[in-house]
């Protein structure tokens, strides 16, 4: 797993790659919560393009961040999830809560 992030105004883009399980979930939660605690962001875009695996621990961390961000009126978007992850994402219901974008540019300009 590896994780990069970049701030665009009040939008945080997090780029993840590899296998996302409870280890990645903990790192992701810490990173995003830090920005939220300091009131630095309102929107979160998670780039899943290079992710090869994700499980319910990571989905839980994603949903948890969604809850905090909804409370402050922000939105959470998913960028380019690979087809192999789609069944898992669909089963978890995240597509009902988060918009999907084909690229970071489109996510940021829609936000």
């Amino acid at each position, binding site marked *: 797993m590896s994780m990069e992030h970049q701030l665009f105004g009040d939008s945080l883009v997090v780029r993840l790659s590899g*296998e996302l*399980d*409870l*280890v990645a979930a*903990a790192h992701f*939660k810490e990173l995003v919560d830090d920005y939220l605690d300091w009131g630095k962001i309102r929107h979160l875009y998670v780039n899943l393009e290079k992710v090869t*695996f994700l*499980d*319910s*621990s990571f*989905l*839980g*961390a994603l*949903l*948890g961040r969604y809850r905090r961000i909804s409370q402050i009126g922000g939105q959470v978007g998913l960028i380019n999830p690979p087809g*192999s992850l789609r069944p*898992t994402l669909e*089963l*978890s219901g995240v597509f009902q809560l988060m918009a999907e974008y084909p690229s970071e540019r489109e996510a940021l300009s829609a936000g």
Partner: protein
Amino acid sequence: MVRHNRIVLEMESIPENVGVARLMVAMLAAQADFTVAEVDEVKLAVSEAVTNAVVHGYNSQPGHTIRVEASLEEDTLRVVVIDYGRGIEDIALAMQPAVSSDPERMGLGFCFMQTHMDTLHVESAPGKGTRVEMTKRKGMERVPSTSGN
């Protein structure tokens, strides 16, 4: 192609070992020429079961042992995940979707195991531990079957 194999993994209850178990079972499935999609499903089920042992069985405390038994018999992969931790009071309840004892979690672990494996069987004794047994046959339409006791 491998038709018979058995691998037992005993490891510390730390989050970093979930990936080790996942990869070990994935290699076993790949040895038997499970498809890439089937291997992915097995990885997800193993990830959920081993994560539960770490997070619920041992309350995220290191220093305990998790045992993963994986075996291959012709077309069938069998995976058993065992912890000697907290145990589950009400297995039928715990296995329901969206039921979790932890607000940060989704309660989808058992649901993913059920969806991606052919059989799932859970045994548990409060204070003694939990044993999750799953099987998957390759090249099959999945017929989920579930039982708990």
